[in-house]
């Protein structure tokens, strides 16, 4: 497989402008004749669907929730980055670019990341024009806060509900286009396959989740904005429905999957409370602006009430180890540091898997009211879940799976290795390298959705001869039949174990062997366990009911079946990458003081895995990463 990134030539700052000029355009009168399918109504899908319709395309948009407004982007709390430099604190497009490249541990493409930083400023303008109620200062101007991995204040926010407000902006734009007839919305509809005709993506096969009907939708181009795959770990901060099915089906039809093992473990989540736990709750990174992270210096103190431990007996380990970034160290680093102190036996709370996030000093400094104004809803959420009052006792937090940097490989046009299949947002691999900085996912989703893919789709359609595809084309029929077979096969197992029990077991295996710290030995073990568990799943899963009704067990089973296969690829990728970088930490590769040790000589590439057929090992393709504008260095936050 040939991987052509199609990064435009010329200086970094001119690439996107140059490309925009060189791209083909579609005559306004012709756009209506072209249908574009957008799977996903989150920031990356919803923004693309709305914008493509504004441009004149005929858009069909799909989501599995009952309304596009419920896409998982709604749950983002903390904020969105943009290089506005409104604070005059030294920010610039180049600095945001640099921070993102460095934050990603030098495993992302310069060209894409620079474009992201450039576009960030337009996003804020666009969102304000739509009425997104970002936080403001008394003078009426926009307010900013700081996020991890940056020393400037460039994060825009709407209380603790930034994702909600940005998504509602995109959703409202989408509904505006629905009312004009440019977008047809298909909620409660799950995509189960991509239709490929003559080597191009020409449609999708979906299941209507209410009636169970399986149908094909044809189009000139397809966009997947279907989100991340963190739920392969069962417990994560993702919404329960978040899944990998759309991108996994595309992978099996020929789209390369890039860096599947790059997973982000977020340092500040509410620790696991018990066996019944169904998901983990994030406490926004913005809390680290004011909260101080610590554990007792001595193991013996761990069982004591935190307020009874005097200052001198506390270890503010992030401030100690990383004095210049302190509590705002990047996520991968903060997560590993938490694991380390807990492994030493200095963790707090049930099972010793927790560290304190303490607002005592901040409350003394600025007062309870100010803290309540900044984080009120987060504090409330914490108290509701744990029954503890964080204004009085420090929060307990622990790392949890949060985001997946890996995803389908795309070129500069956000097109996968299947022509006509574009991928946006968390579903692609493009901009965050081996570790994403806080507040950069919302930025990427909206950059892709509002500003990039609507143009590159035009270039694709304008430069490609797209013959009409008949609904009874053999390739269309074969794809639809394959989907039916798979659904029937799942229903026919009629075993004894619930889908959830399999998902939980898979998740535990992944967390143990492919989580925060990975070793060759552990990964090999996982690669033995997972196929066995998968076989058992296909022999013994129990799905009550039929396919011709709303059947939540069936939906879940289809997703878990795909997670099994993806999990294996993640372990393979983690095993092959004999270095540590960002969120990928191989215990064999660390510096004497326990930091990630990259191997730039051998691993400065994107690993793009290609499906080679059932039962055959996937093929590894490499896209070398070239750095012309930044020097590779060991990432230091000390």
């Amino acid at each position, binding site marked *: 497989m040939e991987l052509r990134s199609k990064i435009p030539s010329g200086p970094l700052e001119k690439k996107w402008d140059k490309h925009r000029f060189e791209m083909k355009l579609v005559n306004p009168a012709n756009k209506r004749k072209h249908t574009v399918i957008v799977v996903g109504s989150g920031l990356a899908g919803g923004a693309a669907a709305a914008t493509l319709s504004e441009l004149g395309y005929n858009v069909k948009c799909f989501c599995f929730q009952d309304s596009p407004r419920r896409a998982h982007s709604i749950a983002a709390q903390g904020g969105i980055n943009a290089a506005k430099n409104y604070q005059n604190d030294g920010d610039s497009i180049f600095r945001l670019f640099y921070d993102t490249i460095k934050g990603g541990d030098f495993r992302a493409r310069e060209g894409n990341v620079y474009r992201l930083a450039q576009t960030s400023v337009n996003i804020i*303008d666009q969102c304000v024009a739509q009425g997104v*109620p970002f936080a403001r200062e008394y003078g009426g101007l*926009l307010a900013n806060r700081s996020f991890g991995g940056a020393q400037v204040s460039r994060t825009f926010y709407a209380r603790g509900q930034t994702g*909600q*407000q940005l998504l*509602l902006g995109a959703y409202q734009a989408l509904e*505006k286009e629905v009312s004009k007839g440019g977008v047809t919305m298909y909620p409660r509809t799950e995509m189960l396959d991509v239709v490929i005709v003559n080597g191009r993506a020409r449609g999708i096969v979906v299941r209507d989740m209410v009636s169970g009907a399986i149908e094909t939708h044809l189009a000139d181009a397809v966009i997947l904005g279907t989100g991340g795959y963190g739920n392969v770990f069962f417990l994560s901060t993702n919404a329960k429905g978040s899944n990998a099915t759309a991108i996994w089906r595309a992978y099996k039809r020929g789209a390369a999957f890039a860096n599947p093992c790059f997973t982000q473990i977020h340092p500040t989540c509410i620790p696991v409370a018990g066996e019944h736990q*169904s998901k983990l709750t994030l406490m926004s990174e913005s809390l680290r602006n004011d909260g101080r992270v610590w554990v007792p210096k001595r193991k013996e103190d761990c069982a004591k009430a935190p307020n009874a431990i005097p200052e001198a007996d506390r270890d503010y380990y992030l401030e100690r180890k990383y004095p210049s970034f302190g509590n705002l160290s990047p996520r991968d680093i903060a997560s590993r540091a938490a694991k380390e102190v807990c492994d030493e036996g200095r963790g707090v709370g049930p099972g010793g898997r927790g560290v304190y996030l303490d607002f005592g000093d901040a409350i003394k400094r600025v007062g309870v009211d100010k803290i309540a104004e900044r984080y009120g809803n987060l504090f409330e959420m914490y108290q*509701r879940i744990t029954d503890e009052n964080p204004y009085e006792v420090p929060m307990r937090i622990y790392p949890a799976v949060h985001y997946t940097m890996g995803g389908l490989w795309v070129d500069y046009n956000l097109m996968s290795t299947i022509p006509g299949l574009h991928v946006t947002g968390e579903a692609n691999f493009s901009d965050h390298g081996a570790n994403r900085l806080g507040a950069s996912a919302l930025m990427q989703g909206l950059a892709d959705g509002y500003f990039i893919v*609507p143009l590159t789709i035009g270039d694709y359609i304008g430069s490609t001869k797209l013959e009409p595809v008949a609904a009874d084309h053999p390739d269309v029929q074969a794809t639809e039949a394959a989907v039916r077979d798979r659904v029937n096969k799942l229903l026919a197992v009629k075993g004894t174990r619930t889908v959830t029990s399999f998902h939980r077991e898979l998740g535990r295996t992944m967390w143990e062997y492919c989580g925060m710290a990975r070793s060759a030995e552990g990964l090999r073990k996982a690669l033995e366990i997972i196929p066995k568990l998968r076989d058992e799943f296909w022999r013994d899963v129990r799905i009550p009911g039929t396919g011709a009704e709303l059947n939540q067990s069936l939906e879940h089973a289809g997703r878990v079946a795909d997670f099994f296969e993806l999990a294996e690829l993640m372990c393979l990728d983690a095993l092959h990458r004999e270095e540590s970088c960002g969120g990928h930490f191989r215990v064999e590769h660390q510096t004497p003081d326990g930091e990630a040790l990259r191997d730039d000589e051998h691993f400065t590439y994107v690993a793009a895995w290609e499906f080679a057929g059932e039962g055959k090992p996937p093929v590894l393709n490499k896209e070398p990463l070239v750095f012309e504008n930044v020097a590779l260095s060991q990432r230091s936050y000390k």
Partner: protein
Amino acid sequence: MNLTLHVWRQTGPDTNGTMERYEARDVSPDMSFLEMLDVVNEGLVEAGQMPIAFDHDCREGICGSCGMMINGVAHGPSKGTATCQLHMRTFEDGASVYIEPWRSRAFPVIKDLVVNRGALDRIIAAGGFISAQTGGAQDANNIPVAKQDSDDAMDAAACIGCGACVAACPNGSASLFTAAKISHLGALPQGQPERNRRAQRMVLQMDSEGFGHCTLYGECQEACPKEISIDTIARMNRDFVGSTVAAREEKALGGTG
């Protein structure tokens, strides 16, 4: 703790439902309400029965997917709390819990506790937006917004579109939902050009969807997991009346040349 559940079971939109009784055993007070239902569902599947269908996704009280009547109260007993954030420690050991779907003419039941809330999307489509086409927006700080206005907008914008207000209202009105969006956009300078048209179109759409009229019972505000204030309804009424008074014939867009 142990609980006795009485749950509405309905196989499809056109069938009659019934209340069924289930025993929930060994419930931990730290579980969320939905985790308790997960455990009951695992038991049902193991016993070869259909699990109870309910909508849920984020389980953080923000997506608005979840929602059920719990002992006759939308989202259950805790104020300002969506069903997914309700914890079992709020219930007494041995209690009976009655669980039903949202009841409203405009929200037909799909299955068990799952209802069709598509009407809410159509109200937004009617006018719940600012027409700002992508691209061409001016610099964000060229539109200063008084902090108070921005805070008011945010208070109203916090609506998660769950439909609890409708379910709680004796008239089945969607006024709080509609008013929240009208208030969010109407509080901002960017929202002014379309303010009248927005109120007009959203209110008419709401009426056409089969929601009841608002007679200011105030139950909606009590049930709202985001505690949206009923004051927003006054604003909606003002804008709606204003739009009727100020109604001018709309000229068609564009020229002929």
